[in-house]
């Protein structure tokens, strides 16, 4: 369950978005510059909205009226970025284990399960720079999954990939959705990705939700 109403001025751009979704996968779609990534940044806590509230799975992580602003590392959100952002100085294995190591406890899924879910077993000892784009994204997804996500934010995870790589990663995302049931906010402007994964689509234009507010 994601509930959100945020306003944020970023230069000339004004984000003024509001939606509620209890779908497992909620897609955020819209043309580039419509505010999709800003919503992700606000939900994750990487930017602070000027006003509004954000609640994830029943937990308020931001509320300007009540002065609540849970720091990024305590929100339980895990983000898969467009450019994967793997740690270049760590092996694939240590990238995967990073969040788990921080939490100091076991994740709901074992590393073996995640490795086989994403087909990355043969990559564990390699460095991120030696991976292809598709491999990198799969490792980034694994890294987020292993860190016990309460909510998973996928920010155009396939946008930097060509069609073949997309076709390589998309089935893994489908399996992830059907096997883990972790709530996902999925940013994309690709209709095929959205149709394959999402039960609910929130469409943004010029920083505003054009279909998401229940009437």
């Amino acid at each position, binding site marked *: 369950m994601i509930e959100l109403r945020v306003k944020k001025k970023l230069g000339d751009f004004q984000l003024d978005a509001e939606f509620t979704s209890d779908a497992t996968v909620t897609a955020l779609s819209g043309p580039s510059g419509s505010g999709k990534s800003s919503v992700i940044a606000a939900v994750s806590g990487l930017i602070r909205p000027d006003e509004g509230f954000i609640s994830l799975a029943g937990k308020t992580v931001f509320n300007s009226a009540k002065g609540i602003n849970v*720091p990024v*590392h305590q929100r339980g959100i895990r983000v898969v970025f467009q*450019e994967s952002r793997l740690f270049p100085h760590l092996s694939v294995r240590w990238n995967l284990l*990073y*969040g788990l190591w*921080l939490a100091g406890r076991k994740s709901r899924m074992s590393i073996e399960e995640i490795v086989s879910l994403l087909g990355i077993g043969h990559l564990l000892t390699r460095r991120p720079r030696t991976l292809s784009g598709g491999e990198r994204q799969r490792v980034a997804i694994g890294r987020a999954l292993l*860190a016990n996500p309460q909510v998973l934010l996928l920010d155009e995870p396939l946008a930097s990939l060509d069609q073949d790589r997309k076709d390589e990663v998309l089935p893994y995302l489908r399996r992830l959705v059907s096997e883990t049931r972790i709530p996902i906010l999925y940013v994309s402007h690709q209709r095929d990705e959205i149709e394959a994964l999402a039960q609910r689509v929130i469409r943004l234009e010029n920083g505003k939700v054009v279909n998401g507010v229940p009437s």
Partner: protein
Amino acid sequence: MFDFTGEEIDAIQLSLWVASIGMLASLPFGLLAAYALARWRFPGKLLLDGLVHLPLVMPPVVTGYLLLVLMGRRGPIGSFLDQHFGIVFSFRWTGAALACAVMGFPLMVRAIRLSFEAADRRLEDAARTLGANGLIVFATVTLPLALPGILAGMVLSFAKALGEFGATITFVSNIPGETRTLPAAIYTFTQVPGGDEGAMRLVVVAILLSLAALIVSELLARRVALRIGGTA
């Protein structure tokens, strides 16, 4: 020709020791100053930047004199450290190490600051979303990414310390076995008749040490760059 006397060996060892201690002792402060200059906004930032760089542009003798005034036994800071912690700088090797640390500080901070500025903030954000607080982000992401610059800064500070003369001799004089570092020993040789051969021996050592420091820094930087890949 390379028959070193005990005094010459003392000077070489003392130089290496003083340069190492000066560099290591200033490293935590160097990291802090570099991080503050690279990442924080605060009033007086320009002043801090200026103060850090002063030893680079001031005559070394001025730095040495200021150290003498401030950190000497009767100086405001020196007497405090002496009374409360038993740390004495004046006319000791510790003072030579302090002079080296101060003179090498701008070079150290410049190199480290650049690497903090270049460290990818997006990777730090990624670490935060994986549950890392500020300190852990610094230790596990920022610091490893900045490692090439930190190593370069350490070597530069060390190399500068090996050649430090003016501030050291002004602050702690030129006492054999205590504050007579390699450059001071060379200077001493040039001041006595028949000292040419000893001076030449030590000059060769000084050149070799400086060259070795530069080569080590280059090799370290390359190795780290290779390990980290495109971001270094």
